């Protein structure tokens, strides 16, 4: 085969390849986007039992939280989970400083101000020590389920090392402390802005 014919073959192959990829990409982009949303929401929402709510919490974000800067953490957003129109839970995204970087937690709080679940969304803690906080399901974070701002008391919202009532993640005092403070902050915020968050007062 002569030179020009083989060049034509290569060019043709490149054209066919590029257009096939382009067409496939174009045709499946919507499905991929919806799959991505589904996966994302599943990853976020397994923080609480699925039977609890019947809406799409991620499509009801709580934008513009008032005074989102708290004592130890900052709230970057939230979602509202409802069941037959009634708010059953509020999910708050909380960012605080861990040992090695930002620690982002998702705290699910029910309408009575009790923790439904806590999940780590982002962490840069030491692998093998504080990094355990990123595992899911997470036995340490499960210890917070059912706790509220007032039970335990403010003094109890600390590590046993600090005369509180929570165990720490072995070898990760700073990470554990950051998480406890962030969860307590979120609960305090919920209590103070309860009506607004539940969407009943305003």
């Amino acid at each position, binding site marked *: *085969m002569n030179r020009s*014919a*083989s*060049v034509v*073959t*290569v060019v043709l*192959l*490149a054209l*066919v*390849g*590029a257009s*096939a*990829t382009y067409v*496939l*990409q174009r045709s*499946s982009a919507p*499905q*991929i986007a919806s*799959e*991505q949303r589904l*996966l994302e929401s599943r990853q976020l929402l397994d923080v609480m039992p699925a039977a609890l709510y019947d809406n799409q919490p991620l499509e009801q974000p709580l934008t513009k939280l008032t005074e989102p800067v708290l004592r130890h953490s900052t709230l970057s957003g939230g979602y509202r989970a409802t069941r037959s129109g009634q708010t059953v839970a509020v999910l708050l995204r909380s960012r605080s400083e861990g040992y090695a970087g930002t620690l982002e937690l998702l705290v699910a709080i029910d309408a009575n101000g009790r923790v439904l679940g806590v999940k780590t969304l982002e962490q840069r803690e030491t692998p*093998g020590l504080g990094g355990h906080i990123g595992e899911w399901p997470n036995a340490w974070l499960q210890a917070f389920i059912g706790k509220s701002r007032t039970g335990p008391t403010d003094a109890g919202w600390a590590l046993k090392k600090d005369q509180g009532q929570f165990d720490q993640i072995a070898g990760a005092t700073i990470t554990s402390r950051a998480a406890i403070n962030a969860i307590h902050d979120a609960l305090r915020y919920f209590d103070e802005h309860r009506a607004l968050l539940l969407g009943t007062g305003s």
Partner: protein
Amino acid sequence: MKRTVSLLMLVPLLGATQTFSAALGITLMLGAVLGVFAVCMSPLRERLTGTRALLASLTLAATLTSCADIVAQRWLLSWQQTSELYIGLIALHCVVLEYHGAFREPVAVSFKRCALFGALMLVVGGLREIIGYGSLGRGLSEHWQGLVLFPEGLHLFTLVPGAFVLLGLLLAVRQAWTRRNSVIKETHRP
């Protein structure tokens, strides 16, 4: 040639076999892409030579891998996200295997080699999942949690160094096995 190819095959073998389902996914994808690549390259190989053949194989490998990646994103997104890196690498596998003439061998030989490699992938993936997570078959289906054998596993084996250790142990077992067999044969000689 052998060394480059086996070193390159080591990458998915160690990196993408965290669980049995991940290993199965990457094995199937490798098999499918390499298969289609081999079929498409065979008419081109006779017509093109040198740089042009390499260019053609590069384009073809890139096309096939991108299409496979898009298909995986569409139907198996959660698996695709954990193995994204290794899916992209399949293109490199195609080009390197082509460059070293692996597809020019008889079909039976390459088929046997592929089957062996696939079996090794699945064995490593299965063992890593059993030792690392204490379960087998997690993530194969949405409604099945997998066969739970132990409540907790050795974390090391879920990481790449653990896979390396496991591969070393498997090789040691194989060597011990072949050596024992040869010793028995020798002692039974008249």
